[in-house]
């Protein structure tokens, strides 16, 4: 198939930028990375980009396609080529460009290292010289964070980092959660104190671009939310961000609506609030807040309180309150909920049903050959 690409070239020595267009022949299964290889081999050997595993695990080939961060090796080109689109390929954002599609990862790694990215051995250390005994359930809290391949796609897209380059950023904070949520780690409080400082968890703008663009389903924004929840659970709530979050909850469970005029004093303190009176007056003038608060309680406040009770009752405090992705890769769509194996075998165009030679076709009744605990039984069998 014919594939067209426009690539932003950059020469760091001369400082020149140029958008170059290439048209190549590629096999139908080609990924963006395959296409760049063809360009480099046969058209322009000076094109620079990183690559290694080509199976979305090494994290080398993060770059932007039409302005959105992708792993080049994960991006199949067939549909794009069929539509006749010519995508624009450029280097990742928020990191200095070295050459063409290669960025300087030093700022990325220095933030990673600022997280104390290693386990501080903890309280439950086994005294028999063996492994820690921890249930899978407890480890699942940081399952998604453990999937991170440090490709930098989230950092590339981070809006908070664009305005504050010192913001620790989604990947570093996700790494932080990896240890805060690990029951083997004993430095939770020290970590959270550090991550709560300026440029830390509360500086995230919650735009969710990191979740959107992460090629591995790490959902860094969720990790940041978990860090916030853990901080508050442990009473590390000096930051205005933490106070802000707490006030939302307090406001919702007491009166059932958000008492905005109390938000600033509760978050920033009374002195700061007085200083902002002028700003408040301006907001009131434009109808953004009520000039005079009318004390009342929302009609169905009981529901809000009950909801809170339910959450408390489930004992899902802190990070445990975030359940959305304990099996991130399972997010890949599938609709097998109700289908039996028989139905799957009977699907139109299905591959032949497996059988062991020497027995009747379709037989799956032979003794299980797999050593292990669970036999591979036919689904739906008793």
């Amino acid at each position, binding site marked *: 198939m014919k594939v067209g690409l426009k690539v932003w070239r950059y020469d760091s020595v001369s400082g020149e930028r140029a958008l170059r267009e290439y048209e190549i022949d590629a096999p139908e299964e080609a990924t963006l990375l395959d296409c760049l290889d063809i360009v480099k081999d046969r058209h322009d050997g000076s094109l620079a980009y990183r690559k*290694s595993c080509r199976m979305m695990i090494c994290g080398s080939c993060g770059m932007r396609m039409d302005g959105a961060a992708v792993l080049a090796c994960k991006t199949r080109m067939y549909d794009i080529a069929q539509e006749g689109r010519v995508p624009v390929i450029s280097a990742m954002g928020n990191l200095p460009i070295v050459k063409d599609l*290669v960025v300087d990862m030093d700022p990325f790694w220095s933030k990673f290292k600022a997280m104390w990215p290693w386990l501080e051995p903890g309280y439950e250390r086994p005294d028999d010289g063996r492994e820690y005994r921890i249930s899978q359930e407890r480890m699942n809290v940081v399952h998604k964070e453990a999937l991170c391949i440090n490709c930098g796609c989230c950092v590339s897209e981070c809006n908070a980092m664009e305005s504050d380059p010192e913001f620790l950023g989604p990947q570093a904070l996700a790494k932080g959660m990896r240890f805060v949520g690990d029951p083997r780690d004993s430095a939770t409080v020290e970590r959270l104190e550090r991550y709560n400082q300026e440029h830390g968890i509360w500086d995230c703008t919650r735009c969710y671009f990191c979740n959107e663009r992460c090629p591995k389903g790490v959902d860094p924004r969720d990790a940041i939310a978990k860090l916030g929840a853990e901080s508050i659970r442990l009473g590390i709530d000096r930051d205005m961000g933490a106070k802000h979050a707490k006030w939302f909850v307090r406001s919702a469970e007491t009166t059932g609506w958000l008492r905005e005029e109390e938000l600033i004093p509760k978050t920033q303190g009374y002195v700061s609030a007085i200083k902002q009176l002028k700003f408040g007056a301006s907001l009131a003038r434009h109808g953004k807040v009520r000039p005079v608060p009318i004390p009342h309680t929302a009609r169905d406040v009981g529901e809000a309180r009950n909801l809170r009770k339910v959450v408390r009752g489930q004992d899902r405090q802190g990070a445990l309150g975030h359940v959305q992705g304990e099996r991130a890769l399972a997010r890949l769509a599938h609709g097998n909920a109700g289908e039996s194996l028989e139905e799957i075998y009977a699907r139109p165009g299905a591959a032949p049903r497996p059988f062991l030679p020497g027995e009747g076709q379709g037989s799956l009744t032979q003794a299980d050959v797999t050593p292990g605990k669970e036999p591979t039984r036919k689904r739906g069998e008793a």
Partner: protein
Amino acid sequence: MIAKHDVLVVGAGCAGMRAAIEAFDAGADVAMISKLHPTRSHSGAAEGGINAALGNAAEDNAEIHAYDTVKGSDYLGDQDAIEVFAEEAPGDIIQLENWGAFFSRREDGKLAQRPFGAAGSPRTVYAADITGHVLIQVLWEQVCKRDIPVYEEFFAWQLVDHEDRCQGVICWDLLHGGLKTVGGKTVVLATGGAGRQYRVTTNAYACTGDGMAMALHAGLPLKDMEFMQFHPTTLYPTGILLTEGCRGEGAYLINKDGERFMKHYAPNALELASRDVVSRSEQTEIDEGRGIEGSVLLDMRHLGAERIIERLPGSRELSMTYAGVDPIYDPVPVRPGAHYHMGGIETDNDGATEMTGLYAAGECACVSIHGANRLGGNSLMETITFGRRAGRSAAEWALSHTTVEVPESAERDAEARLRELLDREDGERPWKIREELGTSMLENFAVFRTEEGMTKQIEIIEGLRERYPTVYVEDKGEVFNSDLTQAIELGNMLDTALCMVTAGVVRKESRGAHARPHDYPTRDDENFLHHSITRWKDGGIELSKSEVRFTKWEPQERKY
């Protein structure tokens, strides 16, 4: 020379990082050199698991692990090394877990273990199907904790062989340009494999045998190079790996009729026979017309959505992305693909090579515990156990010796050679030679080998090597010149491929991954129960042999 260290580790995958950590803990000033960032190393792509006889899932011990490994090696593994390996493996796994590795767990909270091919007990510790990723992360974390310096994106090119010992490495600085020499009292090579010699491979673009080639060019012996493992389940058409864990969890291999053909080849172990056996069976099915478009099918449908999603999420993602198949509904087309080099730089059980001050560990080394065929899950374990041992012995030697000296002439010669390549104004672009090598290796030196094919392959490689001195590097810049490093890598692949096929032709038997069903279909212990040694001499290859070390297992017929 830009810097010197006690211990210099080349390569920062599992073996390299483990060696560096150990050398650091032994008190040495250690640094790592890698052409990639450490977490990009291909160890991270390992999926299924890492073998240690913990006995968590069923009764197991080091002796059974050692026996399985000896048998798997088709009796070509060095048994003293295998015993060391099996005994030290459990301790190394516990240490990784204590460091924070994110392994999968049993209900009682202990480490889970799954069955793997040719293993007498479920002994493969795993992290779903991203075990390598988890190991790379935990080792990188420990490297960060110790603040071990890394010369990142330094392409190691030549060893400094001065006064009969290795004293450093000459590298191309990929990010900034220029040749840079880093001195080391000892050097540990941990540069991984060379699967890119084949068109269909599970290996990353980075796996080009650089360390093996550096050692070869320094006059060191490479051992058992003819043994290239073909992994039975690589995705069609890309060659991307689907873990043996799929079969460990119960997946079937079927042909176009749905027949579980492994019943004919390994009636007891079926899909969980040793990798060489399964690859040969698949290739036979394909060759005899019972495949589908050059592949067979890996059928996971009966495992059910829940088990696939929980235990094999990465394999499912790979199948969906690269083959467009959801294994919950449809079997995945797979075929054998080049996967792992059993051979490599000859070392003793402490990673020491023939050259004073030079050590090797991991896939680039040949201790040898894998012999003629490696068992799934043993290579990750080897990187840890022998990475640690090599790091320890390299540090001990370095701490008892003082000087590092790199003669100016070495740097001058390297510069001249580099300029010769970089300044060439026209010639052939490397990709064509690379593709011809990949295609011909797959044709003539893959799962099945014949005298005729191998002889032809030597001619092909010689022809490509003649063309190689004309390759032309189009990028003349200094900054991130991957066009230059890819040209050097091609040279490394050609030379190591020549070693492989040359050693293969003279091994007139079938053993492990070296299968010659048409002319020498059986194992011949009388004449070939020895290691092959290849050396570079006067621009060609010199062949010799060395003894296999036995402890307690006599060679027997191998059946699964």
